[in-house]
């Protein structure tokens, strides 16, 4: 990137960057709209039997999408609230033990299959939305934790030293210097977590927490492939759209000058 900028005149470089940005902005939504339109056109050409009609109707699909999005967003919000402070704590602590503790926690959460977690929790604890949330949070915790730690670590020592030289307390350095400088990395972690959550939320179907997993499992078990396919395509479409949305937000909230 820097190499390209150096070779081009500043104005040309800026123009090129703008076109690239616009292109990036429209590609994902256009592809999603096309894919979904194609899907529904294909569905409209099919003769659906009574089993398929019970799932392939607007009311049912709308309800599943809402459940899916609610799960995804609440889980991501919880991850942000839990994993960013955990990352800051792990970064600032002198104790190596605390660091490894948080990292191990994140690793375990990511490595344990979410299906196993939901079923186990459903048996020993309860079924429903809260259980699905726990599994989702556990699964998407690691990217945010890691990115928070890495983001903070890569803030230059000279910058921190300068800040301290200006008389800032460690907390002020964190709030005014380190966190803003680390924010692009932290946001990238959140974006990853969001996309993870979209895919993983499909396991909620096993414990009465709804979502598009209902369609996938239903279609698979009854060999009603239009149902399976619609569920899968919608999950993929949501993942792409959310990734895109997160990218736009990332651009908007990134501190000026970074």
């Amino acid at each position, binding site marked *: 990137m820097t190499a390209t900028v150096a070779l081009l005149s500043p104005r040309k470089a800026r123009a090129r960057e703008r076109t690239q940005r616009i292109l990036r902005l429209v590609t994902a939504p256009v592809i999603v709209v096309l894919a979904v339109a194609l899907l529904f056109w294909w569905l409209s050409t099919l003769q659906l*039997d*009574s*089993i398929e009609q*019970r*799932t392939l109707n607007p009311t049912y699909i709308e309800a599943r999408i809402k459940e899916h999005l609610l799960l995804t967003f609440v889980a991501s919000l919880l991850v942000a609230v839990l994993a960013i402070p955990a990352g800051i704590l792990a970064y600032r602590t002198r104790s190596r033990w605390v660091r490894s503790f948080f990292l191990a926690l994140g690793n375990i959460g990511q490595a344990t299959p979410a299906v196993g977690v939901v*079923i186990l929790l*459903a*048996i020993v604890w*309860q*079924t429903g939305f809260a259980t699905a949330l726990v599994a989702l949070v556990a699964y998407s915790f690691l990217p945010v934790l890691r990115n928070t730690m890495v983001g903070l670590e890569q803030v230059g020592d000279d910058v921190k030293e300068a800040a301290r030289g200006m008389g800032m307390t460690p907390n002020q350095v964190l709030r005014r210097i380190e966190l803003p400088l680390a924010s692009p990395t932290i946001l990238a972690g959140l974006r*990853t977590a969001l*996309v993870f959550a*979209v*895919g993983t939320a499909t396991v909620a*179907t*096993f*414990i*009465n927490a*709804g979502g598009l997993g*209902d369609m*996938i*499992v*239903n279609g*698979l*078990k*009854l*060999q009603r492939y239009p149902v*399976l396919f619609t569920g*899968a*395509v919608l*999950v*993929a479409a949501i*993942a*792409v759209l959310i*990734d895109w949305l997160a990218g736009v937000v990332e651009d908007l909230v990134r501190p000026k000058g970074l």
Partner: protein
Amino acid sequence: MFTKRHIAATAAILVTTALLTAGCSTGSAVESGSKSDDLKGLTGVIGSKDFSEQYILAYMTTDLLNAHGANLTTNTKLVGSANTRQALTNKDFLGYWEYTGTAWITYLGNTAPITDPSAQFTAVAEADLKANDVKWLDPAPLNNTYAFAVRSSEAKKLNVKTLSDVAALPKDQQTFCIESEFSTRDDGWPGLAKAYGIDVPASNVKLLDTGVIYTATQKGSDCNFGEVFQTDGRIKALDLTVMQDDKQFFPVYQGAFTMQNAVFTKYPKIADVMAKLSPLLTTEQMQTLNAKVDVDGEEPADVAKEFLKEKGLI
């Protein structure tokens, strides 16, 4: 990157069948031809779906046919009915045990079951042979149909014995745990609710995975009535009481051995050999055998062998 990941995940589901059929096989230790040499030269793999009853039936079939001269192995590694069925139609499996209701609705694409068991069997056997070249041997009496079960203590307290009793309960007691699959089948929840006049808010019906339903029903916190399978060993083990289907709403899910028709025409004696076993497999017998695996933790292969020996079949 993530879009690729998701598309890959979707594709993975669709191609699992192809990949899984390459799964490993387990040999059988039964002495070949101990009973007869009628099936000499018959080789192949007997498959199963992914639950205990299916494992037991697959091992029984392998051992029994091997005792009559065949050289077969058992593969119990596939997950899901659809994959097992695919392995049969792809000719990776010689055969496996299937249920009439499942084939009629899931594979043959019908929506309404036939009430009479033998009429249902005939219809399935004819249609499947014609459409898919799958041969159905004479069925066993076992009927692994759907049922609703409740904690025995609660059944006494609520004084319910039949599904009509359940439908007459106050609405806040009419809570159900069902599978996602059951929720959309004509012979599942929509039909049942209509037949018995069950009219409860959607929040009374919880969608759970099969395994979770048994524990949830035992706990009774999510629901009073759980959708279970008639032959499941856990019904007895968890002290659940099955509600009688007094309006005979549920179709019959009679078990029968299904196999490649080409192999059957070459070895028609398979039917005679299997006819020694099938009539012994009643619903109660299957419940007992399944409980040995699901409750006592025995190996399906051992349970199968023990049963065959006890009946003098191997």
